């Protein structure tokens, strides 16, 4: 077909403003993505005589490193499988059984909690519940000497933390697959189970694959949960890298370990592009239920599914209840007198951390949002030399585990000419370049819904690139801007793996304080901080969502935002 479709790039005559923006973006990317990475690799793969692969070889040679590597892969795979399973379970239950609305709302809230929580929340609750004198293992089940450290706990905690990602990715997909196909299969005499197997499941396979990869990557990069729960018998790479640097003062060793993580991270990234590729994002419509078939799930199966989901939800709520209680009693486990002392502590001694975190979050938000929108627009809609390369580079810091990025920034920005350690800028830069890709993806997805011809119409009427962007595209992709804001904010409040290396005298973060508090056995303040973070995040994201709904141009649908 000769018609240029909705996806072709704007090949118009050169546009000085666009050129300027592209150049500026490349400079920023070079400084905040490529340069730290190069420094990291340089520092890792060098010794007195210059560049060498010897440290890498030595690291691979080391049995304990290989063990950590293998553990990381094993854990990630298991988390991927389990998380996808639960995510699918939830999505299927919501989309295919006749679950009442309130119940669906409950599920939504419960699955949102792990996504917006600061790190360690699940882990702490796990230790309390499943340790040798755990509430569940000892008090309820009468087990003595249960072991809470190791693969099982880490797996369970990470699955609980990340399965909502799978849920959020799979739900619109199941909603989008019309009940028609299933109904047709029924009408042809298939049993319900058969329909499920042959129709529903097989149509969902790409979604399942995508969810698996999402979770695999998330687990691979998770530094916080294994720090608490993996124990000494199950070392994993991001934690080992961190310990190598902070414990053995071996920056080079830690850098090398981080590089090992690059391999699976890269593989996952490319696999994801294959699976998701250029597909349209299945959009989340308001009327997702319209497509469901009345018949697809037998009442008994329905009840069973709902039961399982409910059990999981209750468990999640239980964990968070523990957190809440720990923040409200004097000494959890010893002295259960109710008190607001911990909250007082976080708002007095912890106030600098709160202020710092909020300031950084509030500054990072608009920068991240704008960056996401501009890059998304350029990459999706315009043509310029190196566009494809830019697309990849912008995703680098997002795809890499946080530990790598943190270490890279620590190395790169502690020396002239880019002395940024000790400032907030380094933390903000880390957040912006690490978490904006979600905004980029959302922008791209939205743009795919906006036909080319709308921009062409603007051009044909005489508007410049800039005016077209400002008056037409920007308002239309405003939702992506807000999605970007939202993600950067949530991450700013809850991230730790990268930024633990970047805090300083002048700027500290709530999540780092939580970690410190926990290691100092000040459980109360740690819990209080966590509760505070959750509340703030809920309020802010609810507000942003409100504004978002007002601003979405009628007729446009928002893609499901994932992590």
């Amino acid at each position, binding site marked *: 077909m000769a018609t240029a479709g909705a996806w072709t790039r704007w090949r118009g005559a050169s546009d000085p403003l666009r050129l300027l923006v592209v150049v500026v973006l490349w400079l920023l990317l070079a400084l905040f993505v490529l340069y730290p990475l190069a420094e990291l690799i340089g520092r890792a793969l060098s010794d007195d005589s210059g560049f060498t692969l010897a440290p890498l070889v030595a690291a691979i040679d080391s*049995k*304990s490193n290989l063990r950590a590597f293998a553990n990381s892969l094993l854990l990630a795979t298991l988390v991927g499988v389990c998380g996808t399973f639960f995510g699918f379970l939830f999505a299927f239950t919501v989309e295919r059984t006749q679950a009442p609305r309130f119940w669906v709302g409950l599920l939504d809230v419960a699955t949102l909690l792990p996504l917006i929580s600061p790190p360690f929340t699940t882990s702490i609750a796990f*230790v*309390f519940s499943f*340790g*040798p*004198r*755990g509430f569940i293992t000892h008090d309820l089940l009468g087990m003595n*000497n249960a*072991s*809470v*450290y190791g693969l099982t706990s880490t797996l369970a905690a990470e699955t609980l933390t990340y399965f909502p990602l799978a849920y959020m990715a799979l739900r619109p997909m199941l909603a989008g697959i019309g009940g028609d196909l299933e109904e047709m299969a029924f009408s042809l005499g298939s049993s319900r189970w058969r329909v499920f197997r042959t129709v529903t499941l097989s149509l969902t396979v790409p979604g399942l694959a995508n969810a698996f990869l999402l979770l695999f990557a998330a687990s691979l990069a998770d530094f916080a949960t294994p*720090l608490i729960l993996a*124990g*000494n018998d199950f070392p994993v790479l991001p934690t080992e890298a961190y*310990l*190598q*640097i*902070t*414990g*053995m*003062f071996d*920056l080079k060793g830690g850098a090398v370990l981080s590089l090992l993580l690059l391999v699976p991270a890269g593989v996952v990234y490319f696999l994801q592009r294959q699976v998701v590729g250029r597909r349209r994002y299945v959009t989340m419509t308001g009327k997702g239920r319209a497509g469901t078939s009345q018949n697809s799930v037998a009442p008994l199966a329905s009840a069973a599914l709902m039961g399982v989901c409910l059990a999981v939800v209750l468990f999640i709520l239980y964990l968070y209840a523990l957190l809440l209680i720990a923040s409200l009693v*004097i*000494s*959890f*486990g*010893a*002295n259960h007198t109710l008190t607001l002392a911990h909250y007082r502590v976080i708002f007095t*001694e912890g106030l600098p951390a709160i202020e710092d975190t909020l*300031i*950084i979050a509030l*500054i990072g938000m*608009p920068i991240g949002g704008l960056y996401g929108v501009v890059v998304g627009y350029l990459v999706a809609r315009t043509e310029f030399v190196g566009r494809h390369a830019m697309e990849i580079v912008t995703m680098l810091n997002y795809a890499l585990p946080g530990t790598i990025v943190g270490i890279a920034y*620590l*190395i790169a920005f*502690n*020396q002239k000419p880019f*002395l940024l*350690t*000790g*400032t*907030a*800028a380094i933390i*903000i830069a880390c957040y912006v370049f690490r978490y904006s890709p979600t905004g980029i993806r959302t922008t791209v997805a939205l743009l795919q819904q906006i036909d080319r011809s709308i921009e062409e119409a603007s051009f044909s009427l005489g508007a410049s690139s800039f005016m077209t962007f400002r008056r037409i595209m920007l*308002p239309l992709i*405003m939702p992506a801007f807000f999605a970007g804001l939202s993600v950067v904010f949530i991450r700013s409040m809850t991230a730790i793996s990268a930024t633990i290396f970047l*805090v300083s*005298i*002048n*700027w500290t973060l709530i999540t780092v304080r939580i970690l*410190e*508090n926990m*290691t*100092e*056995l*000040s459980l109360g303040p740690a819990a209080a901080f966590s509760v505070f973070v959750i509340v703030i995040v809920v309020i802010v994201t609810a507000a942003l969502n409100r*504004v978002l709904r*007002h601003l979405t*141009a009628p007729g446009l649908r928002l893609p499901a935002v994932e992590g």
Partner: protein
Amino acid sequence: MITSRTRRIASHGLSRRGLLGSVLATPFIARRAFAADTLNAYSIWPENYARPMMEAFEKESGIHVKFIRFSSGEALARVTAEKANPQVDVLFGGPVETFTAGQAQGIFDNYVPPAAADLPARFKDKGGAWTAIADDPLVFMTNTQFLKQNNLQAPASWDDLLNPAYKNMLQMADARTSGTAVTRIFSILQVHNRNEDEAFAYMKKLRQNVQLYTKSGGGGTLPVGLGQAGGGIFFIVDALFTRQQGYDVQISFPKEGIGSAAECIALIKGAKNPDAGKKLIDWAASPAMQSQLAPNKINFIPANPKVETEAGLAAILKGANIIEIDDAWAGANRQRIVQRWVAEVLNAS
């Protein structure tokens, strides 16, 4: 303007440009004040110990101290990484072996406070790289309930910890990140007269009973207090803090002897506020600070002999066999010993 008629969507009223413009400048200005009355420090002492001390210092000297807490390993790594551009002036608190290691990295500036004259040799570096401000012996801490349930006495020997009853019930520090662990390891070495093979054989056996090697020195105290773990080896400050919080724990010492670590302070080379830093060191090494420990329920033994050990603390220490660890030897061999520990003990399974 035609805007009101061309756009019917609820106006978002955000001035995007205003938002961006007004706050962009801030983060690029390091908030650190360069005035003479501010001081920056990394504290290895926990927040709730360091803060009262810093506040007291500010009251006396008028100098405000900005500090952030790191565990000893993290602190050392940080200062070393920042060598080219030191972010702090003083490294406050932390076990001596961290300081000897740092000395080897060349991150300290020599400075001898006046109070050093009163200190015994083991509490100061000959060249003035660091000075001790407190002493902190290691102890065994066990959960009372656990002991009762297993019909055990509070452990009085290193070998007591090898009892199968303690299987998966011990928590102690990880040598990669915590000075507590290093002190513990060197205590064991000392008890075995520096016979490394013997010492490591013991530690390998001990490993069988260890539930978790914790990131920070005191990380295991809460689990022991709660009963999640049966016991562990900690610095006395952490053990007593646990008891003070209301957890029912026992403190005991091995008859073969156990070491202690001096808690030190040092001036960072290239510090931006060296004079203020020196004032802090002067103050910390002297009775001025150390007499504040007991009132703040901080259970370090003061290093300065002019300050008396608080009565309750003294009572606990009565009869304990605290042995001396050769800090110079420890400093020189730290890296090697820790690596051996990681290879042979930690990764033993």
